[in-house]
């Protein structure tokens, strides 16, 4: 199964051009929906207004080299490892899901655009990437959704209670799960089941990429921006009006250790 390119098998039923058109349609849906979301929430306007305010109260004027350095550090330390989630299971689950999704989507695009038919031999590394990416997405996503969601962990709601905020994570999990099941049934010769999972895979993709306006999908664009702005504000001394790091005398001692938020 892991060396199976499900898209080359699909090319007998659907032409590669149609598959490539579907990918472009999904990219278009994400772009348009994110722009609509920005216009509706006015969050980018708020973000730039806030950045202007921060610039006014800056204590140090950063050079372009310093700004670039801060941005690069943020990308490597904060964004690439989702540092805002602190140390713990949520961060591990998020990193698994994030990299799993990136690998899964990248491999999907490469498979569809470069190796869409059975006539072209697909490198095993690429199909392994596609399957491993989907598995990582499932591992991180189900772990988060079943155990680590704040609704379950801190608010004591049952895991099966679904709310609008679950649209993104559930659609993403459906994509990865149905994708894997489609590949497995296709490679095992279970034709009817493979068609069923193919339909479910397409439907979950449509919900995931078509539902950007109503889901949390766009957080993957906003969060890096917010992290960069936060670190730039720390570097230029404006610190979003936060107090400076404490020059603590020794007698202050150790504070209490932060515990998991589940004392409901």
């Amino acid at each position, binding site marked *: 199964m892991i060396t199976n390119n499900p898209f080359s098998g699909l090319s007998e039923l659907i032409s590669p051009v149609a598959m490539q058109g579907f990918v472009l349609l999904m990219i278009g849906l994400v772009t348009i929906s994110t722009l609509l979301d920005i216009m509706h929430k006015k969050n980018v306007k708020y973000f730039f207004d806030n950045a202007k305010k921060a610039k006014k109260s800056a204590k140090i004027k950063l050079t372009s080299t310093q700004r670039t350095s801060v941005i690069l550090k943020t990308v490597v330390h904060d964004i690439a490892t989702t540092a805002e989630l602190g140390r713990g299971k949520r961060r591990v689950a998020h990193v698994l899901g994030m990299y799993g999704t990136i690998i899964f989507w990248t491999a999907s695009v490469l498979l569809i655009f470069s190796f869409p038919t059975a006539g072209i031999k697909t490198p095993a590394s690429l199909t392994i990437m596609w399957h491993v990416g989907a598995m990582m997405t499932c591992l991180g996503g189900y772990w988060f959704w079943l155990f680590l969601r704040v609704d379950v962990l801190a608010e004591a709601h049952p895991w099966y209670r679904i709310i609008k905020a679950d649209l993104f994570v559930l659609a993403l999990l459906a994509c990865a799960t149905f994708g894997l099941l489609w590949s497995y049934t296709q490679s095992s010769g279970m034709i009817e089941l493979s068609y069923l999972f193919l339909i479910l895979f397409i439907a979950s993709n449509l919900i995931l990429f078509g539902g950007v306006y109503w889901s949390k999908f766009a957080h993957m664009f906003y969060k890096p921006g917010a992290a960069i702005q936060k670190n730039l504000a720390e570097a230029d001394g404006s610190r979003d009006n936060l107090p400076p790091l404490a020059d*603590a005398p020794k007698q*202050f001692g150790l504070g209490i250790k932060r515990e998991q*938020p589940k004392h409901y």
Partner: protein
Amino acid sequence: MSTFVYMTRCDGCGHCVDICPSDIMHIDETIRRAVNIEPNFCWECYSCVKACPNHAIDVRGYADFAPMGHSVRVRREEEKGTISWKIKFRNGKEKDFVSPITTKPWGKFIPKLAEEASPNHGEINSQRLYTEPNGLNIEGDLPTISKDTFKKGVYY
């Protein structure tokens, strides 16, 4: 001044939900971020402001002076055991304060009542509170005052 949440900063970790003594910090059902559902019931204890690891919760100033650019923000550094406040006045004046964290660990000073035996009728009708006299850290019984020593006409 009640609290509010910056949605771009919040990551929905639930620390504020966990700590709020008024149970008004909840998770929004659309975007899964924290929200103060009832600012009027906020005790203004700022437990949530201090507990937030992302500085995503802030103090909402009163409407008459908030637009003039004041700010009340806090930074909690557990490894140093400090809690720092920065007060920015509407005239631009700034003041910084640093204090030790005095929060007690979860459960240490809170009796686990569910594990205790149910009180009997006498204990229910007693004037004593649950932890008395042991909780007062005194030797022997509670001090008593004889009614004979009371000044007549004052207490009855």
